[in-house]
């Protein structure tokens, strides 16, 4: 049995905690201490009522001094709870904090077993394992990594905007990268927000302007992150900027070029108005766009596609010369210490549920389309009309389209009930139409939301509980002629109903963005089983990811409304700021490392690491592990055919001794 201590014997202090009655009530602690005292290397073996208390920790510190202990084992509760506490005590006693091993005899023993003899035998086995293991513990240092003070925020929706402003106002330098030509995200398309019915543009646009005005924020729109390299505190990011063929510095947003375009009218679906209106190849996304700069669609512009155009736009901009058809895509490299990903969501494609007739019947629209109709700056000037221009006299809302549905998406999209009731109230207000909401359950959890639901009921909106089976235009009775008929089971009344209406609004659910897998790999994040970016812990760390230095905020983490998105954005900014202001991050030294003499350069380990921490050294042709990137999973350690990769804190000899310890008969 080899020891790794070159300068003397192993002297172990063993402590078993009563934890009041929690452990001692089932496990005979005195007997365990007695058993362990007989093991080789154990100098001190005590049982005590509360090891984690101050006197308990004092006991450890004193014993280290008085008995020249160099290894400590504590048998008490779960290491997930108090490993750090005891490591601190050990360090305070003058020992390296990693000369410590903890034994779980509470959560894994006294709390789950009733037979005293069996529980005590198990406690002895587990304690013996720890005592054998701890002999092989090496002195390790917690590593520190410096943090670059700049931050990258990816996504310019409300979450990204808020995170960027919070950081910038704290004096940090922020890069805000947004894929679309303007920031604002989905919220820019909304008319009023629930439950207060305040105007979305009125609360969003000041924040958008603040972003533009803030000297600490570098705003790059029409841009995407192309590559991320590095590790927490030291990220090198390549940002690809798409050419808008308009010089951002020179354009003042007067829009004369759009007026002058050879296309007399809009011809292409306007993205901001979700296809309800048309735009020209040269356009500005929406009137309050930030930056207030024109963009030219290179797929549709005559000059860019064929080279043959009168270029009336250039003429119109004669005094500023902002239009530049020679503009090229450029890639810029930046260095940041932290990244906040706030890339938002996409809406469910209603065509995936053909029973609802979206795309088949012109008067079946999605919630976002209705949102544009309702907005006074929208394609109909705020008039809610059907496709033929008539004002609807009856409108139905179908909830949970692409949500809570095992055939499409199982989750609840959280905002659609409130969103639909908001639209329902606005429809009632604008048109006086009869409004029916077909729902499964009404979810109105936020502040003021239940009251909003009450108001909807008082407004005379009808609610029918039942998943809509289909939307059809075949009429059974004269009243149904010319209308869309909704067939649904009214589960409260217990009948199947046919309800004819003029217009139907589908409350489409939220989904992860189409490229979420590609994006998560870019930032070394995981996605949950549903496709949303995975948080480190659903309750205790909702904006952190398993990759240090990368945070998530807003709907990219899961469906949520505006207040929650802003809350998460603030939280992510605070987490980033904590790292920046402290200036360094500490890493538990359970990383893998290569013993070069034993490495043959077989490269079996290279593809195994999800953090790309292992590379092949170009000169030595041996594997090399970047300790800052290594997260300590140990997969490469188990895979290495020559055993040349080892793991600190989880060395083979440590684990083999644990196995031996639990199996040795008393």
């Amino acid at each position, binding site marked *: 049995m080899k020891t790794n201590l070159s300068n003397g014997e192993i002297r172990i202090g063993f402590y078993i905690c009563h934890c009041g009655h929690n452990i001692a009530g089932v496990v005979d602690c005195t007997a365990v201490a007695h058993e362990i005292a007989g093991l080789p290397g154990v100098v001190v073996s005590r049982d005590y009522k509360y090891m984690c208390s101050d006197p308990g920790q004092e006991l450890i510190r004193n014993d280290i001094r008085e008995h020249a202990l160099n290894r400590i084992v504590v048998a008490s509760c779960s290491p997930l709870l108090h490993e750090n506490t005891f490591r601190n005590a050990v360090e305070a006693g003058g020992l390296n904090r990693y000369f410590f091993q903890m034994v779980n005899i509470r959560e894994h023993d006294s709390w789950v077993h009733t*037979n005293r003899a*069996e529980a005590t035998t198990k406690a002895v086995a587990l304690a013996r394992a720890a005592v054998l293991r701890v002999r092989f513990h090496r002195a390790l240092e917690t590593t520190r990594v410096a943090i670059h003070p700049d931050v990258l925020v990816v996504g310019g929706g409300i979450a990204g905007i808020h995170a960027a402003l919070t950081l910038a106002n704290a004096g940090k330098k922020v890069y805000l990268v947004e894929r679309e030509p303007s920031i604002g995200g989905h919220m820019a398309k909304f008319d009023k927000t629930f439950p207060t019915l305040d105007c979305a543009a009125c609360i969003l646009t000041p924040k958008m302007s603040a972003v533009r005005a803030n000297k600490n924020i570098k705003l790059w729109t029409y841009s995407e992150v192309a590559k991320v390299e590095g590790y927490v505190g030291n990220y090198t990011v390549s940002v690809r900027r798409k050419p808008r063929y308009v010089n951002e510095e020179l354009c003042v947003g007067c829009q004369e070029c759009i007026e002058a375009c050879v296309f007399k009218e809009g011809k292409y679906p306007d993205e901001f108005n979700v296809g309800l209106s048309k735009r020209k190849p040269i356009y500005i996304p929406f009137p309050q766009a930030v930056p207030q700069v024109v963009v030219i669609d290179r797929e549709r512009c005559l000059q860019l596609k064929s080279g043959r155009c009168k270029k009336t736009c250039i003429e119109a901009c004669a005094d500023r010369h902002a239009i530049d058809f020679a503009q090229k895509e450029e890639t810029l490299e930046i260095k940041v210490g932290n990244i906040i990903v706030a890339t938002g969501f996409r809406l469910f494609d209603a065509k995936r549920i053909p029973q609802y007739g979206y795309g088949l019947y012109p008067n079946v629209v999605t919630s976002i389309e209705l949102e544009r109709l309702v907005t006074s700056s929208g394609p109909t000037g705020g008039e809610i009309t059907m496709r033929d221009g008539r004002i609807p006299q009856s409108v139905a809302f179908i909830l949970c389209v692409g949500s809570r549905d095992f055939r499409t998406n199982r989750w609840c999209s959280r905002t659609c009930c409130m969103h639909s009731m908001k639209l329902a109230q606005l429809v009632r207000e604008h048109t006086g139409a009869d409004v029916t909401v077909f729902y499964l359950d009404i979810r109105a959890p936020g502040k003021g939301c239940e009251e909003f639901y009450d108001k909807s009921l008082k407004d005379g909106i009808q609610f029918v509980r039942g998943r809509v089976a289909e939307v059809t235009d075949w009429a059974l009775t004269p009243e149904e002629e010319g209308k869309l008929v909704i067939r649904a089971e009214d589960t409260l009344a217990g009948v199947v109903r046919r309800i004819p209406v003029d217009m139907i609004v589908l409350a489409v659910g939220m989904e992860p963005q189409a490229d979420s897998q590609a994006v998560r790999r870019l930032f070394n994040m995981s996605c949950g089983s549903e496709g949303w970016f995975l948080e480190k812990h659903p309750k205790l760390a909702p904006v952190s990811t398993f990759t240090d230095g990368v945070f998530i905020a807003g709907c990219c983490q899961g469906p949520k409304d505006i207040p929650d998105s802003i809350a998460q954005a603030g939280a992510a900014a605070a987490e980033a700021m904590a790292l920046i202001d402290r200036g360094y991050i500490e890493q538990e030294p359970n990383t893998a490392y290569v013993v070069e003499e034993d490495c043959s350069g077989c490269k079996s380990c290279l593809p195994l690491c999800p953090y790309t921490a292992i590379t092949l050294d170009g000169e030595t042709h041996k594997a090399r592990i970047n300790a800052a990137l290594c997260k300590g999973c140990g997969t490469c350690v188990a895979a290495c055919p020559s055993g040349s990769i080892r793991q600190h804190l989880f060395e083979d000899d440590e684990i083999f001794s644990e196995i031996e310890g639990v199996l040795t008969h008393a």
Partner: protein
Amino acid sequence: MHDVNWEPRIVAFFCNWCTYTAADLAGVSRLKYAPNVRIVRLMCSGRVDPQFILAALAGDADGVLIGGCHIGDCHYVEGNLKTLRRFQMLKRMLAEFGIEDQRVRLEWISASEGDKVRSVINEMVEQLRPLGPLALRQQFKDWDREIADGDPVSATPAAAMHETEAAHA
């Protein structure tokens, strides 16, 4: 031949983030289960070297349980996929040795599935009972003796137990 009070002994390798946490949750919830398991904590089920399993079996464990996160939820992205691969290959190898299928088990248990820890352990203990002790150490000794003396020995300790019982009947 073996102790009538014999109880199966299982060594478990649990990943820190999911299964170990689930076992903690089982404790916090005061669920009760068989005391036959000894848990070894690792960061990821991907750290489970097949040698650990073999060492446990050779060290007289009657069974080995490996616990990791559900596929797709590994804290380290894909460690559990490697575990799965190794496990499948190892099972084939163990079958060649005549080690019964029930003795080595891989379970995906998420941090919220405290009850699954309980039911898996209880189930495994009950499955191992009729198989009897693996007693590999004794097996090796018996085979060595057989090779030296040319004296045939029973296939498994359980078979030996039955032979002894039959002889006494």
